[in-house]
């Protein structure tokens, strides 16, 4: 292709975006292709004579350049490993590697194009009807369908080629759309002194004006000159404005509540929050429906104009222009001026607008204008070769169908307003019967519209609308009184615009799609290019009963592909209306949902970091070789090599574990005790200073929410611990029950303020005595007591409690001292054989003491009476949360109970396995481990209340086989708790 003879490059065009002084080269399916800086992949390929860019989704028909604006599916390619890139908007980079998708072995010869001959096998909705009998057939068929269908593929082993950043942006006014209406809106708002962000999806502002060579002279104060000249003046003013920030080449893919716009801009996802939004998003030109309307060489008129004016590429050699409006006549003139032979302009309307200058010029240059005619079908295999044109109404012997040879067809099928964002924002649409376009009405507060998206197609109106929208958007920001006079003036002029001398009257708008010729019965007349849905498919679906537009969409899948209806919604609605005998308005449209344009999931995910909590001693654990695990949002040490060895260290010598993750709340104030009495099942207001009590929190119905300890540090100061994962919930719970009572109790989450360790084992006292001035003797510092003093030179709260069943202390110090205290205790305990122990060892040790872990051994239905914690419930209290529920549970008696069990053989069950009887589950193991102390498997389980007796035999399922176990109601280790109290 490099230096080939198919070069379709024109001489330099005044408005082209390419820089002919900078040459680039890229690969397309292994062949070198020349390009200029500013070319898109598609424009460069077209210049090199490449007609086929892709193959259709279902029938693998060849597809070529269609819209040129990044809306249709025809040019999806793989670029440098990234699938589904639109070649018509992807700028060429040096040495890019571009490959086709969805064709094998090549674009020119795709073996799967045989499916095009098997359309009869795959009617609309065939996968609901075919290949389901016998049943097994669907499994096979599904695999084949998945393999041959689809667009693009992802290499899951490849490194991501793009990492996306996120950014937030705030603006007084956001204007979406950089065409004439959007430019006018931005300028109108900026003049009022408000900050404006102007967003456009093309690399250059100007919209359709950039490739519209029509002379817009009429009202010199509004429009004067050609499209590019008008655009240039507006853009210059935007650049010079200090109040306008432009984000070009950015797609607004959604609008959310309170004017939150989400924008994909290269490798950045920008979330814009604006006080008011102007939607000047324009329209999409749409294709016409005729047989083989999807052949390469058949494109939209605006696509041809883009090729000529923006990229200096000749779209073809001989063209037939088919249209339903006046705009195509200018396109035909552009083609003629670019050296393309215009074989005919085929207009479905009986006549074009009176005085249409372009038509007059075309006639004077010998171009046949066939009004009242339409293309019935196109012929060709890998590119269009000819079209057949016939009179639309009525057919007569005087107007026979005629064949016109061509290699290019330009379609002007009308316009589909780009109103998806308006729908996202909550705006509604009225459908205009004549044009088939949805016209906005009932706009949400703070949202304004202007330009072609409102259904207008003349420049002067669009500019005035834009200005008005900008002024009104600015007024919402500045206040009701501002710029009222100017708004009135613009509104008045807009209302009377059509009567002004010199104004170009609005051109007749587009007509609904042509009814399918009966011979073809709608075959190969494509409505949805993305999903290969034909007119025949739509007709058949309606015949089958899918008359509602929403159901028709879902059943046929029309509008559900990459274009999301931009190319096909208008035709779908028109056909549905025609064939069900309803108006366009009654038929309605489909629902536009985010995103408007495909967005990579990586862009939504953004930078790849997850909030992770680490304790102050985190690095110490890693340095000791701990295996770290996620416990909710925390990183914790699971073990330091051998949980069994760690257990033995605690039982025989001394161990230390980082328990910083425990939730910690300070509850202070003169009514702090009363608050705790209300939320816990036990008494706390009567706790003496320096004492600790175990606490259980229940919800209103008496089920267990959380547990922990409560330490009274001073008369009006309590130190509360909760489970690691529940501290935020419990803080909220406490505040909820305190709010509005007028009581004086303050709850502060101090979880991160303290680093905490638990030092436990027969030599724990010996270790800590070296480090503290607090008297740790059994007589002075008894079990369930607290003290405050220095440990390792650091002020500390010491709690004598024992989750693991050994003599031990939980030591809380200011977090910044965490590392120091850990290292000092480890050093002090070295002579006693201190060892760090992790989560797994802790679980084994506490299980030997039958200490319950809320959420592990209990669930949302568990109450303290069933769980063996009835001793914590004080019915003699005046009231507490859950009291009534617990009273009822107490009266009813438990159906199931939480008990300990010990295996009778060498098996060790897993957490969660059932307890069985007669082959049926009757309970569940909540926690189970192997005990190095007892040398047996053991754990906790829920069993029916009648089995909850010491020594009862039960069966536990291990690897699918029931294994014998024995119920135990007393802790397996130190059942009397003597070691705890030593």
């Amino acid at each position, binding site marked *: 292709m490099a230096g080939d003879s198919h070069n379709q490059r024109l001489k330099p065009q005044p408005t082209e975006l390419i820089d002919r002084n900078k040459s680039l080269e890229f690969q397309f399916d292994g062949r070198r292709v020349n390009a200029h800086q500013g070319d898109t992949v598609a424009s460069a390929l077209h210049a090199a004579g490449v007609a086929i860019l892709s193959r259709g989704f279902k029938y693998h028909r060849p597809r070529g350049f269609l819209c040129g604006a990044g809306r249709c599916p025809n040019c999806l390619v793989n670029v440098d490993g990234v699938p589904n890139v639109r070649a018509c908007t992807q700028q060429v980079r040096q040495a890019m590697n571009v490959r086709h998708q969805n064709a094998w072995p090549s674009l020119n010869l795709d073996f799967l194009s045989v499916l095009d001959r098997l359309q009869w096998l795959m009617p609309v909705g065939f996968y609901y009807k075919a290949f389901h009998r016998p049943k097994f057939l669907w499994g096979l068929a599904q695999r084949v369908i998945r393999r041959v269908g689809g667009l693009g593929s992802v290499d899951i082993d490849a490194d991501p080629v793009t990492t996306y950043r996120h950014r937030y942006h705030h603006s007084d006014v956001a204007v979406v759309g950089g065409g004439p209406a959007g430019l006018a809106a931005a300028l109108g708002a900026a003049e009022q002194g408000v900050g404006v962000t102007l967003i456009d999806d093309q690399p250059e502002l100007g919209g359709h004006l950039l490739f519209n060579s029509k002379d817009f002279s009429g009202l010199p104060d509004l429009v004067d000159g050609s499209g590019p000249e008008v655009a240039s003046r507006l853009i210059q003013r935007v650049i010079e404005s200090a109040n306008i920030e432009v984000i070009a080449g950015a797609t607004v893919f959604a609008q959310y509540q309170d004017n939150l716009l989400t924008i994909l801009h290269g490798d950045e996802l920008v979330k814009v929050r604006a006080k008011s939004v102007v939607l000047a998003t324009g329209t999409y030109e749409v294709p016409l429906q005729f047989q083989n309307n999807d052949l390469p060489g058949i494109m939209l008129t605006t696509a041809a104009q883009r090729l000529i004016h923006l990229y200096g590429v000749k779209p073809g050699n001989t063209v037939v222009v088919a249209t339903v409006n006046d705009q195509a006549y200018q396109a035909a003139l552009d083609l003629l001026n670019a050296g393309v032979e215009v074989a005919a302009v085929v207009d479905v309307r009986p006549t074009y607008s009176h005085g249409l200058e372009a038509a007059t010029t075309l006639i004077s240059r010998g171009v046949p204008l066939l009004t009242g005619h339409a293309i019935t079908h196109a012929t060709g295999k890998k590119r269009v070769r000819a079209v057949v044109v016939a009179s639309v109404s009525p057919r007569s012997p005087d107007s026979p169908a005629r064949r016109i040879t061509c290699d290019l067809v330009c379609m002007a099928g009308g316009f589909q307003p780009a109103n998806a964002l308006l729908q996202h924002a909550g705006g509604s649409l009225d459908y205009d019967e004549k044009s088939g376009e949805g016209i906005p009405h009932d706009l949400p507060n703070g949202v304004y519209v202007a330009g072609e998206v409102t259904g207008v197609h003349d420049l002067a109106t669009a500019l005035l609308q834009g200005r008005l929208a900008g002024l009104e958007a600015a007024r919402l920001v500045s206040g009701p009184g501002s710029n009222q006079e100017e708004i009135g003036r613009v509104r008045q002029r807009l209302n009377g615009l059509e009567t002004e001398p010199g104004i170009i009257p609005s051109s007749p708008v587009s007509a609904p799609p042509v009814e399918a010729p009966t011979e073809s019965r709608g075959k190969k007349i494509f409505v949805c290019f993305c999903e290969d849905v034909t007119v025949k498919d739509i007709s058949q679906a309606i015949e089958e009963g899918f008359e509602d537009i929403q159901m028709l969409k879902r059943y046929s899948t029309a509008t559900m592909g990459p274009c999301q209806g931009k190319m096909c919604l208008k035709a779908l609605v028109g056909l549905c209306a025609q064939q069900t005998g309803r108006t366009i308005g009654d038929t309605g449209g489909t629902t536009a949902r985010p995103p408007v344009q495909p967005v990579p999931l990586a862009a939504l995910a953004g930078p790849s970091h997850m909030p992770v909590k680490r304790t102050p001693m985190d690095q110490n654990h890693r340095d000791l070789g701990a295996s770290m695990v996620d416990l909710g949002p925390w990183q914790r040490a699971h073990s330091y090599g051998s949980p069994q060895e760690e257990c033995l260290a605690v039982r025989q010598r001394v161990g230390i574990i980082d328990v910083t993750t425990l939730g910690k709340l300070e509850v202070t104030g003169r009514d702090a005790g009363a608050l705790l009495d209300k939320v816990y099942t036990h008494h706390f207001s009567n706790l003496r200073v320096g004492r600790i009590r175990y606490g259980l929190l229940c919800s209103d119905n008496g089920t267990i929410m959380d547990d922990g300890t409560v330490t009274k540090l001073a008369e009006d100061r309590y130190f509360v611990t909760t489970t690691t994962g529940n501290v935020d919930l419990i803080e909220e719970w406490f505040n909820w029950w305190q709010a509005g009572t007028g009581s004086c109790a303050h709850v502060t989450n101090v979880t991160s303020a303290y680093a905490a360790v638990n030092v436990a084992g027969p030599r724990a006292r010996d270790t800590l005595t070296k480090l503290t001035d607090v008297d740790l003797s059994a007589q002075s510092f008894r079990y369930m007591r607290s003290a405050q003093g220095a440990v390792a030179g650091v002020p500390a709260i010491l709690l004598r409690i024992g989750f693991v069943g050994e003599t031990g202390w939980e030591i809380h110090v200011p977090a910044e001292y965490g590392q*120091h205290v850990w290292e000092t205790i480890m050093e002090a305990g070295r002579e006693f054989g201190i060892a760090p122990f992790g989560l797994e060892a802790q679980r084994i040790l506490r299980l030997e003491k039958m200490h319950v872990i809320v959420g592990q051994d209990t669930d949302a239905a568990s109450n303290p009476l069933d769980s063996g914690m009835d001793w914590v419930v004080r019915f003699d209290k005046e009231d507490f949360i859950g009291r009534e529920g617990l009273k009822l549970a107490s009266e009813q008696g438990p159906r199931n109970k939480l008990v300990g069990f010990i295996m009778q053989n060498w098996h060790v069950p897993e957490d969660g396995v059932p307890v069985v009887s007669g082959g049926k589950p009757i309970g569940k193991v909540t926690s189970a481990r192997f005990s190095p102390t007892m040398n047996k498997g053991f754990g906790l389980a829920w069993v029916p209340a009648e089995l909850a007796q010491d020594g009862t035999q039960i069966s536990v399922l291990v690897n699918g086989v029931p294994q014998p176990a024995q119920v135990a109601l007393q802790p397996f280790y130190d059942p009397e708790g003597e070691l705890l109290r030593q």
Partner: protein
Amino acid sequence: MSITAQNQAQFNPIRRSAMHHKHLLLGALMVERDGWQQPAHFGSAEAEAKHLREALGICDISPRAKFVIKGDQAEQLVSRVFPTALIPDVGEISVEAHAGGIHGANAALCRLAQDEIICVATTGLATWLADGLKDDSGQCVHSLDISSALAGVSIAGPQASHLLAMISELNTSDAAFPNLRCAQSKFADIHGTLLRIDLSNLPNYQLYFGREFGDYMWDALVEAAEVCGGAPVGFEAMDQLQG
């Protein structure tokens, strides 16, 4: 041997911020200052000062003293400790220079809600504040030293609000968030409190967040700072700014 209060000092306790390990990995020169290990610089204090003036610097300010005062009488308690201070309105900050009678020591009073004020101060004021904010009046007011609970990072320089725009939806432009304002919001998906206290006319935002997120937040800030042309800076560069 019994350990007495006097010889507790032998343990030489060292205070480290949640980002201590991250500073070591970045090659910071760690020195002891106000009882904390702090990064003096990450290679060159002069280069870091230049970053601050021209683009952006992020500095670990976790050692600063932080107290929360809650309750209906919060304003009155703060006024007792700072009798000449202007108590700010909600969302505003007032700064007391030479607080506690110590030259160079400052305290920022930040009103987060009608009944909640946080005081962020020079590290050395912690004890003075703890004593001053004790209330025995029986009124419903509560003060708590949360210095250990919160890590802090100063984000300073002309590009500071650009960095914040990458991690938070809060509008930190000059118009919406001028000097001496405070707010709570999400920053890099976690809850934080933001104070703006400019230094020598340079925008300076102090971000405080749960200490347990220190590693995570530092990584997020360093990544965002790089995009904005910024870098971590030590206290020497920040001191130059404060003159």
